[in-house]
């Protein structure tokens, strides 16, 4: 718990149950440094949003949390990120296991070009979570229910996932992510490709999911950050400028840059 105490002293904020703790994270793409010494604490069972102008590194940081950046050959990460005090960049840790614990929802809905059922069942199947067909069906139904999609697709569960509307596809992706029962869900601008109604549905869903999961959401919409998150971190030019309770950040930012950004002066 040393790390936790460290972070507390650094940010000056007390968090009851930290889930994800990042300390001095630097990310390099080749020679280019994309993140400078970012340290963040994400609480369990809540929503934390990362805001900031385009190219500020918030998505890069998000992808560090489930080591998605590993797939980019030129990318290099230093520093320490831990989930439940376990270092996720520890060489002994299996990255596939990590990604099962840290689910991800992407900017563009990306269901597999398979049936709705297969989309949700894929994760449980490869992780051997279900031992019978009935069991699997139950998990799929449960996940779709939690993603608020069950009522809409129950009659066409065998239809292709790509045939759904954009908002439905994104909820399908959320169902797919929660089917493996992760501890953390990362959302990379999940509503940027959706219309306001679909966005509202997703936001409702996020609000429900935070009872059970630690959710980290990257968003360009400050209203969305204010609506769905309890904590907010503001990134700018690869630096974490400010981190705090969402209400504080939006009403009483400590940093000038934060204030300028949330009042629309740049970004």
């Amino acid at each position, binding site marked *: 718990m040393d790390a936790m105490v460290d972070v507390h002293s650094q940010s000056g904020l007390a968090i009851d149950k930290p889930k994800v703790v990042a300390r001095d994270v630097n990310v390099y793409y080749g020679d280019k440094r994309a993140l400078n010494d970012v340290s963040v604490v994400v609480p369990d069972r809540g929503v934390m949003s990362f805001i900031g102008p385009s190219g500020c590194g918030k998505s890069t940081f998000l992808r560090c949390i489930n080591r998605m950046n590993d797939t980019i050959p030129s990318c290099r990460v230093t520093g320490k990120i831990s989930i439940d005090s376990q270092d996720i960049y520890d060489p002994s840790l299996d990255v596939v296991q990590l990604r099962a614990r840290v689910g991800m929802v*992407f900017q563009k809905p990306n269901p597999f070009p398979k049936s709705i059922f297969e989309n949700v069942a*894929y994760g449980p199947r490869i992780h051997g979570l279900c031992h019978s067909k009935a069991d699997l069906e139950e998990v799929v139904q449960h996940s779709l229910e939690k993603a608020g999609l069950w009522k809409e697709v129950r009659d066409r569960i065998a239809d292709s996932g790509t045939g759904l509307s954009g908002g439905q596809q994104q909820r399908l992706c959320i169902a797919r992510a929660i089917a493996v029962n992760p501890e953390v869900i990362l959302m990379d601008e999940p509503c940027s490709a959706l219309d306001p109604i679909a966005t509202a549905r997703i936001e409702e869903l996020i609000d429900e999911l935070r009872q059970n999961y630690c959710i980290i959401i990257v968003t360009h919409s400050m209203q969305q950050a204010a609506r769905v998150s309890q904590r907010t971190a503001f990134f700018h030019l690869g630096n974490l400028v400010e981190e705090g309770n969402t209400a504080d950040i939006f009403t009483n930012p400590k940093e000038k840059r934060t204030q300028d950004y949330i009042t629309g002066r740049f970004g």
Partner: protein
Amino acid sequence: MTDIVATPSPLGFRRVDVTSATARARIRARYRKEARFKAYGIGALLLTTVFLVILIADILHRGLPAFWHHSLVLDVPVDRELVAPGGKADAATIRNADYFPLTRAALEVAIPGIKNRNAQKQLTRLLSSSAADDLRDRLLENPNLIGTTVKTKLLLAADADLYFKDKPTTIMTREMRGTATPNATAGEVTVLTSANDFADEIVFIKQRLARRADRLTAEADRLSLFAGESVAGRVKELRVEAEALRKRAEIPKVEESLDNRMPSLLVAINGGLIKITKLSDVSATGDTLLPLRSSAEAKPGTWKLVTYETPESNRKVSDQEIAFLERFRELGVAERSFNWRFLTAGDSRDPELAGIRGALVGSALTLFITLILCLPIGVMAAIYLEEFAPQNRWTDLIEVNINNLAAVPSIVFGLLGLAVFLNFFGLPRSAPLVGGITLALLVLPTIIIAARAALKAVPPSIKEAALGVGASHQQAIFHHVLPLAMPGVMTGAIIGMAHALGETAPLLMIGMIAFIVDVPHGFTDAATVLPVQIYLWSDLPEAAFKAKTAAAIIVLLMFLFLMNGTAIWLRKKFERRW
């Protein structure tokens, strides 16, 4: 926004003027340019279409006749002693019996009275050496037919078959006015007529002689342009010959003789046919090609003069053969049927017996080896290079070399196959196994490149989605990326296979060019493949092989269309949207 456009820009940007003459001219020029571009495109398309249509029409025109052949349907008296000597009617005896006397007898029944040895030989040679195959099969099936007369199909030899497909000469007949009397029924016959029936022919012959003299003179003039001892002699000869011909043409002689450089004139009288060698206004003398029934007087209108327009020396079938074949046609025994043998038999020196089956099976066996080797290896190599290989100098080197290999001339692969598979590993010569391995080397780069392109075309979001739910890299590739890339991989593979199907050069090097009669039964049997068969046939002098060559090309093209069709079907079937 409209306000901004309406007011002069403070930054000094110029507005697009759409009404001035220059602007209109510019727009017109742009339209013209677009129309011209479109015309170029349509022109190019039309040109290719025309070439393609010409090519295909030409091949079809030449090749389709080879899918039919002609045979004579004759009553064959099956002599028990010849087929089953001593009453031994077992399969081996029947199979090995000599059927030639039977078919000869059947021909003699159909056209009786041919005494001339040479004519007899020409008659029997109209039939293929395997003419009695159908009869033999029927006897094997039902030995009770031995001793009876069997109506059976006798396959014609290639030249006779070609005669029915494409007549080498126009045949004209003219009814005669006089009453004709032949002086014999066989051998040399003279026909006397009461009218001057042959006067027109004499004139016609003189015209021909004059024309031939003109041609020879022209040839002599042409040759005399080249000074030289050797030519001078020839020129002199030609001039002498031309002079002689001209004299013959000019002298109003009442009698004229014919040779084989003149159109053939024949007299059809009393059911027989006489080839005229000498004729005057009122008489014609010649050899009988078909014997006359009697030497009775023939009334006006019952006898005819027949002309074979093309001189005998300019065609492959003799007058005698034409006489026989025309007689068969009149008898209604010549029958056209689909040439199954072409699709079921192996190669042969006799054009009418040669088939494509051996090459077809050889191609199939070879392509099978190619496919099972290069599809898995190619796809695995592509997956590794595209998804797993570290980016370093070695992988770059490998990539460059794969691209280079795709451009290596195919004969080089043949040399490689010869040196490595035959000489070093000692694999059998001419075998589909070696051909397949060699072609696999040739096709591998194509498949790797196509498969990599297909893998690259799968959106990365699919892979990310799979990784995001905790699939390993390999699971993501094999569960999601590869199935989506499969249509592209399949298309590449089939295009590669089509390429291999049409490949000749490397197979020549490993001995798949041998003349192979048997249809191969396994991967190590000696075999040949379709394009090599086409190459072999195109080289043969017999006229009938020209049609066979075109027909084999048709078969090859059908195969190619089939494969490309499969590629398109597979792509459509497995194509998914994402």
